[in-house]
């Protein structure tokens, strides 16, 4: 069963006088529980693809089905709920809110999905324990190492049990040791049945995936050859 079905997707950016086509008719299916790496040089359109998969942006043309729901037809206002419930983001630069302690950071998606306060903290603590940070609940992100911060970010991404986990260069800001730890967590999540989509430059990182999708000039090169 495919969790993501994308067909003939085109994305144009209107830069005033000129139009730039970032994606030129992309077809892509991703199965549930698959671990996929997206690779490509900068300017290849991989960020654009990733933003559309993450429902942060909408395609200009083409259909995008997420969990059999045609999300490309949804208005922008409905996309925030999709992001909240179905997508977990992990960013290169962690993107934790610096003023909140890590428990509060992990609780944020639960707050926006309207969970009661007590249930939130239960769930957040449970998830943080699963990434080994149960003794740091009251720490601010600035008091943690890069690897620890990325673990908080992963906890935040999975706390709402999303359909897909979307990671953008998750090891890009980390040393190889903690980068390896983070990849191990993704591996475990994948083994537990989660769908993981990871954007990366690093072919060593990409090698851990079931399948590598190469993207170039807005086209997928050899998406179905790997794995």
């Amino acid at each position, binding site marked *: 069963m495919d969790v993501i079905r994308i067909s003939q997707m085109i994305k144009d950016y209107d830069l005033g006088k000129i139009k730039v086509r970032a994606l030129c008719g992309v077809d892509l299916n991703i199965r549930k529980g698959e671990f996929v790496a997206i690779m490509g040089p900068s300017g290849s359109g991989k960020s654009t693809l990733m933003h559309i998969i993450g429902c942060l942006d909408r395609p200009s043309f083409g259909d995008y089905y997420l969990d059999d729901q045609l999300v490309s037809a949804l208005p922008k206002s409905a996309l*925030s709920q999709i992001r909240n419930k179905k997508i977990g983001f992990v960013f290169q630069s962690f993107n934790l809110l610096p003023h909140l302690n890590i428990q509060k950071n992990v609780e944020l998606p639960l707050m926006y999905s309207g969970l009661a306060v007590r249930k939130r903290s239960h769930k957040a603590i449970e998830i943080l324990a699963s990434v080994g940070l149960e003794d740091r609940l009251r720490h601010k992100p600035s008091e943690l190492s890069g690897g620890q911060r990325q673990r908080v970010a992963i906890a935040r991404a999975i706390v709402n049990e999303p359909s897909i986990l979307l990671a953008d260069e998750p090891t890009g800001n980390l040393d190889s040791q903690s980068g390896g730890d983070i990849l191990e967590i993704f591996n475990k999540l994948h083994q537990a049945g989660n769908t993981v989509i990871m954007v990366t430059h690093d072919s060593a990182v990409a090698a851990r995936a079931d399948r590598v999708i190469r993207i170039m000039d807005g086209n997928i090169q050899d998406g179905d050859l790997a794995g």
Partner: protein
Amino acid sequence: MAISLAESLHIGFADIWTRKVRSIVTIFGIVLGVMSIMVVLAIVNGMNKSTMKWMNERGGLTRIDVERNWSYDFSKGGKAEFNLREINYLQEQLPELAAFNSTISKGDAELSRGENKTMADLQGVMPDMVLVEDWRPDKGRFIKELDIQENNNVVVLGSTVAREIFGSRNPLGQLVTLSSETVSYNSSGEAESSLKATQLEVIGVMKERQMDSMGGPFQGNMLEYLNRRAYVPLSTMINKIDPNQQISSLELKAKDTESAGALRRKVEELVLNLKGGKRLFSIVSASEQMQQMKQNSMIFSVIFVMIAVISLLVGGIVIMNIMLASIKERTREIGVRLAIGARRRDIFTQFLVQTVLITGLGGVFGVVAGYSILGVVGKYLGVEVAASAQMVWVALFVSVGVGLIFGILPAVRASNLDPVLALREE
């Protein structure tokens, strides 16, 4: 489902707390604005109160005064004076009055008994003075109609005058000597003054008058000048003490406040006819005066509240700018919130609530600050200040309103951010 208001308030307080210094700077304008609204309203309120109190002390709102018209050009002829016949005529023409008094103010006169003497403000009055001033003797009686008819040598003393002459002894039935200077004109028109002594029997002592001033240039008892008076019958004053004195003022009292205005116009007409159409006298009704004063203080307070509101608006614009800058600075945070599922509505609410919280807090601090400087301001300006619960609500309402108005634009801008661009922001 959007996040609740309680949740937004919680986020708002946390935001304010993590940016303490900025928040304090931001609310400063609002604090000042609200503070000045508080102070202005309290001053106006206090002024109205003390005016009302003064009016009541001086015979209430039914009082009508006929006084020399100072704006009349007396070189055109005519004297602002009534003779006893005119007084009788006016009294007959105005049966609807509750009280009719006319006064001759002789001014400083020496009263003595043996070694003890003092200066008193000597006035010739009619029996109704007690009604006009709503002021009765404490001991003995006041001047009666019979005293007027018979030009009796009687005097009613103010409490201070009585104390200075008699000390603690009972003055009733005692004789005092009035030494007064009388100016007369000889055949060649030159003024000659002569001293004259008159024996007067003390028939009463007025109740002591007391009204504390509310700071200001007058310290102590504002009504002490009344305690320094001595009253003799109007006729005695003219016929026995000083024939040069003329009646130059009337104090009248209407039965009720409603009829005071109409009565004033009637008196004005009568006096005008009596004096051949010359406006020698001005006729003032206390109730109309009060209305005028209320109107004046209304205009005054509207002007000052508007100035305060303008300063609040300036404070609001400052807050709007700081919020806009803050949103620029927090673009990435907004991007993160949007990415993990915040709706535009949530972001909008978050920032609007934060602005309203800031202005609301400013309002609370402003009320507290305004309240705590009221006493000092009152003392410094020499006016009475009176705070009321209503003012507090006005101040808080206005400050929250400023937050709602000036919070909209920053909140709209925050909620309209594109999540992709916001996440890219450094």
